[in-house]
């Protein structure tokens, strides 16, 4: 972990900090449940968006390949889970089998998208990836005939929740006198996976592979001249990014219990891309902050704008839905003006020379 936490210099402080963060993460759902269970669900969705943003960050932030069809991989993961754990085909595999399968299939789709786009960049790459995202959605919409694979626009319902040795993630259980509701159980699972995903991302970035991606982002010709096989590295970026999307999709399926192609539209791709850009392309923690902000702000507005208008004018003048898109747009414009590189720009990790040479020798 000391790739990003300097545990050597101030070990005590770091451990106290980590303990505080852990305590906060453990306590958070109970605090949120006090306001309303809806907020725990919103938090869970926010964490899913973190997965998506982190996955897309590998492709866009690290390797610099603009991908406007990223949500397709989310869809692939979601449908893999839905088809293998629902009455659709009467198959009910356990989640720890399906999630890796979904990741694998999304990974294959990632390479399928990557292969024909290797020589494209900029606008052209954006258009092709956008088309890819739409193709996947349209397939999901239409694969109900001649053979009913996806059940078309009706979507798939009654998807199994996670089950582990008789512990079902659906419904409420009582553990040591506390009521563990379904969203709280998912919350703990999601946060645990999120921590793993963050560590994986940080380690990838600080590795030979991550440096090769960043070199491609900065200058592809120079990267090749330095001996980087840009084809393989780009495919790898697509594959890694897509598999994170696939895992997130599987978890989405299980949490919602129902999915339809409606959930995997272009606007979702754009939303995830906005999270990456807002947070700071290429900065893992920035991207997490971006995802959390763009997930929470609309919900906070939804719950405050309506009542506020009621209180002031006695009636709702502007539909909260319209209002939040307006504020959302304003926020993005202000961001671009004042922090164009994102909330946490991809800062160069300060590498202390003295310490390095001490390490080296």
């Amino acid at each position, binding site marked *: 972990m000391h790739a990003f936490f300097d545990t050597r210099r101030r070990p005590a402080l770091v451990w106290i900090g980590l303990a505080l963060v852990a305590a906060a993460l453990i306590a958070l759902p109970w605090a949120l449940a006090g306001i309303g269970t809806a907020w725990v669900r919103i938090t869970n969705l926010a964490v899913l968006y973190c997965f998506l943003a982190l996955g897309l960050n590998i492709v866009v932030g690290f390797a610099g390949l603009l991908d406007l069809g990223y949500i397709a991989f989310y869809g692939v993961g979601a449908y893999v889970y839905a088809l293998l754990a629902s009455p659709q085909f009467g198959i009910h595999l356990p989640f720890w089998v399906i999630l890796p399968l979904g990741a694998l299939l999304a990974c294959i789709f990632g390479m399928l998208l990557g292969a024909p786009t290797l020589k494209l960049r900029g606008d052209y790459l954006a258009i092709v990836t956008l088309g890819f995202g739409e193709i996947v959605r349209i397939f999901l919409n239409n694969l109900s005939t001649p053979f009913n694979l996806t059940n078309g626009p009706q979507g798939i319902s009654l998807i199994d929740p996670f089950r582990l040795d008789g512990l079902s993630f659906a419904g409420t259980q009582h553990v040591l006198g506390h009521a563990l509701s379904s969203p709280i159980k998912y919350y703990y699972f999601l946060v645990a996976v999120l921590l793993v995903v963050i560590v994986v991302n940080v380690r990838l970035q600080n590795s*030979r592979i991550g440096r090769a991606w960043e*070199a491609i982002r*900065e200058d592809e010709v120079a*990267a090749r001249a*330095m*001996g980087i096989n840009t084809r393989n590295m780009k495919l790898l970026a697509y594959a890694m990014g897509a598999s994170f999307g696939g895992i997130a999709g599987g978890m989405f399926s299980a949490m919602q219990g129902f999915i339809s192609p409606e959930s995997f539209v272009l606007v979702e791709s754009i939303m995830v891309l906005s999270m990456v850009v807002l947070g700071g392309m290429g900065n893992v923690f920035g991207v997490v902050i971006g995802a959390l902000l763009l997930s929470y702000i609309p919900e906070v507005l939804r719950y405050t704008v309506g009542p506020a208008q009621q209180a002031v004018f006695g009636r709702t003048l502007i539909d909260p839905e319209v209002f939040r898109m307006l504020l959302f747009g304003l926020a993005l414009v202000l961001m671009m003006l004042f922090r164009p590189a994102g909330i946490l720009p991809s800062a160069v990790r300060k590498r202390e*020379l003295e310490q390095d040479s001490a390490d080296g020798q």
Partner: protein
Amino acid sequence: MASDAGTAGELLVARDIGKRFGGIAALSDVSFSIRRGEIYGLIGPNGAGKTSLFNVLTGIYTKDSGTFVFDGAPLDDLKPDEVAERGIARTFQNIRLFANLSALENVMVGRHVRTHATVIGAIFRGRRTRDEERAIRRRSIELLDYVGVRRRANDLAKHLAYGDQRRLEIARALATDPRLLALDEPAAGMNATETAGLRSLLESIRRDGTTILLIEHDMKLVMSVCDRVLVLDYGKKLAEGPAAEVQKDERVIAAYLGGDVSLNLKGT
């Protein structure tokens, strides 16, 4: 050229290299050979085909005809990354650093081709990966020190002074452990002091066993540092030989000063 491939003394042998862009012959039938341990100059007026020759050699362009033999084995139809792996590293005429990476990271990228960590290794960060990372970093710092930009190690490449960027590009190329270092106008835009520093850097690179192919317009530098020189003009070989001899070649003078001028000079 009567040069035989595979001779112990020759690192790179080029035979009849040709490259056309549409109707224009950027290179036609260019042959030359570079000996191990020498600094080999490549000069010629603007548009003579020097950079084209670099691009053909390093696989950025595919050549239309001819062969390269590098270190006894043919170097044909390889992609740029494969050429780098075979041991030819280059710099660019218009500096192409990874602008938003630190100087140190730029050099570390150069180690890519000589290291092995995979995705799995990177994620689990086992002992082997950690050792390799440490070695990459140690070597990269050494190289920064070697070219004299260690004090800027943590600064973004784009924030370095021009001369330092040129040096950093050389360090990045050296990080790939090349046997042939191809430099495209490394002294361009440098002042006299910086050029003098560059000359001693080139000499120490040669002393440490790396052969250098040098495109350069600064004749003072070429003449003082190069063992032999190849002169290109309109994509053709005009002359090849020791720097001092080439300097006196009438055709070379004509190419540089313009035919009329040299005729006039002759007349007087």
